[in-house]
């Protein structure tokens, strides 16, 4: 694998104009996706969802029910795709893995003292290895925001690189917690650090604070991915997480991916939605397209 030998100076990442980003985003939201292109989009979205439960009160029962839903979204409608993955705490990985045996749905695990990331390096490595050993296909790590905001960019880089090593064959998603980074300049910087350090995916948020994913933040990350791809030839995936609960919003994200990166990223190998209630909204839209009438949530299983 080709790799640049010198680390870029992470203090000098491209500047971002926030108002300009917001204006570009506004154009995406005025795209009108109707009829067949809407149906296509809805199915793509379903297949890109990482169904998520990350609560203190998670139990074996909760996780098993979510895993069943992951494979059987709404059996009343034939030929529906499954979601891409489920996302759980390391302690639930084994349960999820068993529940999903035989399906194509992956198991992603959060790790590295999620969600705060405030712990020692050894604890974070152990956390990661535990999840990987239990069968996690993907690891969603968090960066040390405190170190980042103190300007210790090389620390952040090293941390990501060592977690990547601990992942083995599991794919690594790096969560920035963009709500804490606050400026788009910082989001761009975090993207460059993570990709240089070997991230397979860059991800906006833990979903635990607000704001979570937003279109401006996502656009900045997609543009960073594009520039990195042109420079190195390596594709990196992107996952906005939290705050996307309507099909309409999700479709706007797909428009954004399509018009920034093109067709190659429009699959769940390279794009995911971190969401819990989005799936049911998409199902309702699919049902509406098929039947012609607006739907009620009562007809779609919550969970």
């Amino acid at each position, binding site marked *: 694998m080709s790799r640049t030998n010198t680390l870029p100076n992470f203090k000098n990442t491209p500047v971002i*104009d926030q108002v300009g980003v917001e204006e570009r985003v506004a154009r995406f939201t005025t795209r009108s996706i109707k009829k067949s292109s809407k149906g296509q989009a809805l199915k793509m979205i379903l297949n890109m969802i990482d169904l998520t439960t990350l609560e203190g009160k998670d139990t074996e029962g909760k996780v098993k029910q979510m895993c069943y839903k992951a494979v059987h979204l709404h059996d009343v409608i034939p030929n529906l795709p499954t979601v891409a993955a489920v996302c759980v705490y390391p302690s639930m990985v084994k349960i999820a893995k068993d529940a999903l045996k035989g399906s194509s749905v992956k198991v992603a695990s959060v790790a590295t003292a999620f969600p705060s990331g405030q712990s020692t390096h050894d604890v974070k490595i152990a956390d990661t290895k535990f999840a990987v050993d239990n069968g996690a296909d993907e690891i969603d790590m968090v960066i040390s925001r405190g170190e980042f905001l103190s300007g210790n960019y090389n620390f952040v880089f090293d941390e990501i690189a060592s977690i990547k090593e601990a992942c083995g064959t599991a794919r690594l998603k790096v969560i920035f917690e963009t709500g804490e980074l606050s400026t788009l300049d910082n989001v761009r910087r975090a993207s460059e650090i993570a990709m240089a350090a070997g991230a397979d995916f860059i991800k906006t948020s833990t979903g635990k604070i607000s704001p979570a994913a937003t279109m401006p933040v996502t656009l900045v990350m997609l543009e960073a991915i594009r520039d990195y791809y042109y420079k190195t030839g390596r594709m990196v995936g992107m996952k906005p997480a939290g705050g996307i609960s309507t099909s309409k919003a999700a479709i706007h994200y797909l428009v954004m991916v399509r018009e920034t990166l093109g067709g190659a990223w429009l699959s769940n190998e390279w794009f995911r939605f971190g969401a819990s209630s989005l799936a049911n909204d998409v199902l309702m839209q699919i049902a509406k397209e098929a039947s012609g009438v607006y739907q009620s949530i009562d007809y779609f299983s919550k969970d």
Partner: protein
Amino acid sequence: MSRIEIQKTYKLFIGGQFPRTESGRYYPLKNKKGELIANICLSSRKDFRNAVVAARSAFASWSTRAAFNRSQILYRIAEMMEGRKQQFIDELMLQGATIKAATTELETAIDTMVYYAGWCDKYQQLFSAVNPVASSHFNFSVPEPTGVVAILAPENNSLLGLVTSIAPAIAGGNTCVVLASERMPLCAITFAEVLNTSDLPAGVVNLLTGSSQELHAHFSTHMDVNAVVTYQNKPDEIKTIQQNASLNVKRVFVHTAVTNPNPYLIFDLQEIKTTWHPIENIGSAKAGY
């Protein structure tokens, strides 16, 4: 035997120097009794061309001086005029004014110069604006000087006419080429001497004497002149000037009489520039512009 006087040669004022007209021509200025007062240069279009070159090259620096600096220079012009009071009054009387009229004209002219000196660093505040646009941008409009202004000074007010037409132009950062009154040109050259001793940079004001009938077409066709101001009440010439102005969309201002001094005469020779820049809003508070 009484001493022979050294008679004054009346030349042009171009680029801070006093050349004769390159055409070598002159016209005699006579008093009421028909006696020769002086030979006045009859400027040619080449003189005008040279004056425009001088005005253009002085513009970049004059227009970007601190406004306060400009006001000090204009005030000094008034100081120099006060110092030459007697010379001006004598010349005005030579051209036919009574001593009372001459004194009044001179005093008004000096006070007018002081008036415009005071405007140099204030008209911007009157004519600029911060515009409350509906999007997240800082938006402001400022006046900027138009550039090189060709001025046809009033025919009937020798000194006061010059001051009234020149002061608002240069107070606003423009440079100018001025054609003095044909009938009463004497004060123009003395005024040029005043300018020359006032720290006014060379080329900011250029003074020509001659005939508007001959020169008005050149004043208005030159492609490097941005505006024409005329105080000459000659309808045919005005029409020609306005027609010619269309060649490069010159701004034309026609005054039929000497107006009361006011800052809108400065504003006539200004362009308004509006600038936009985004405002980055982080957090919930929004900018108040």
